[in-house]
């Protein structure tokens, strides 16, 4: 049992790491990775929703009728997203303001619904939690990495600390909208290069 849990957990970290291997849930990835802090904050919020919804869907998998399962998943996910929204509003207000509309939009993040449909609905609760946690952490790491590249090149800082000397000219393109697409595309290319070997 422990072994299979480890297996489900680790696949989210490399073999199926979202959003690179599973090209799902791109909107928050592109929009909030202007800095490492935003990226990781969004990643943690998504992880929380993913683990909770995976667990609940898996618990209820024998009760939910197959025909109306999508509607049930959405209600479960929306409930947890509301929980996250209220928690962030109470405890991390500045981050809540920065992420803005993208917190309620976790509801329509394809990764969360995708995992509920593809994994949690067919597997036992402990496996579903491991899967959700693995996917969530993989997602957080990807967002953190993308945020680091963009913040470093576009602003010359990482987590607010200056990386380059005072003469550094920020490559503003990277923190603007077009830079997000190009940067993600190139990182995907890098992943393909490494993964092929």
């Amino acid at each position, binding site marked *: 049992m422990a072994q299979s849990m480890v297996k489900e957990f680790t696949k989210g970290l490399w073999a199926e790491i979202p959003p690179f291997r599973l090209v799902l849930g791109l*909107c928050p990835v592109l929009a909030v990775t202007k800095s490492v802090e935003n990226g990781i904050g969004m990643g943690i919020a998504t992880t929380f929703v993913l683990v909770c919804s995976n667990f609940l869907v898996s618990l209820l998998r024998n009760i939910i009728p197959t025909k109306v399962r999508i509607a049930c998943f959405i209600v479960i996910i*929306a409930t947890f*997203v509301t929980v996250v929204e209220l928690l962030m509003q109470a405890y991390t207000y500045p981050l809540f303001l920065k992420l803005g509309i993208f917190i*309620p939009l976790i*509801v*329509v993040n*394809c990764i969360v619904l995708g995992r509920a449909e593809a994994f949690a609905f067919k597997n036992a609760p402990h496996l579903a939690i491991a899967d959700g946690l693995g996917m969530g952490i993989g997602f957080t790491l990807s967002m953190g990495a993308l945020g680091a590249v963009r913040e470093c090149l576009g602003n010359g800082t990482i987590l607010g600390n200056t990386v380059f000397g005072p003469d550094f000219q920020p490559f503003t393109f990277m923190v603007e909208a077009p830079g997000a697409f190009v940067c993600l*595309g190139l990182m995907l290319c890098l992943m393909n290069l490494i993964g092929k070997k």
Partner: protein
Amino acid sequence: MGDYVVLAISCIFVNNILLAQFLGNCPFLGTSKKMETATGMAMAVVFVLVMAGMITWITDNYLLKPLNIEFLRTVSFILVIASLVQFVEMFLKKSMPALYAGLGIFLPLITTNCAVMGVCLININEEYTFVQAIVASLAYAIGFGLALVLFAGIRERVNVARVPQPLQDTSIGLVTAGMIALSFFAFKGMV
């Protein structure tokens, strides 16, 4: 009247939903490999987005706000959108089979298109009036369609070009999208 034109232009070009606000990127990459599917998706989005914009505005202003239950906004909006899509699907199947066949699989997919939910939330956050909300929804949807169709056109061309192996498919797609976003970036400061 002039205000509405400015609002529409800003929603179509300056704050383009795909390229400046990053909403609805999954269908943007998923359905842009062929021109046909791209136009199908664009049409379906225009159709649903305008209706969802109207209905969620009414829900928020006449149901959630008077009852002071705004914290239920996320749950109620997604339910409204999901049931609206279902309803539209049944209605079209019965009364306009030609259009239904055209939109096909794209209708159910729209439920999880964050562009729809995103625009509904923007309408509320910006405190638009009812008419403004309709104009904004329509303009955002047109912006979505425009970017999607442009992107599909370029992608069809890229498909026959020789692309280095690791860059193929999604990777080059994202870089291409970046270039389109760069051209839309020029509209910034216009409104």
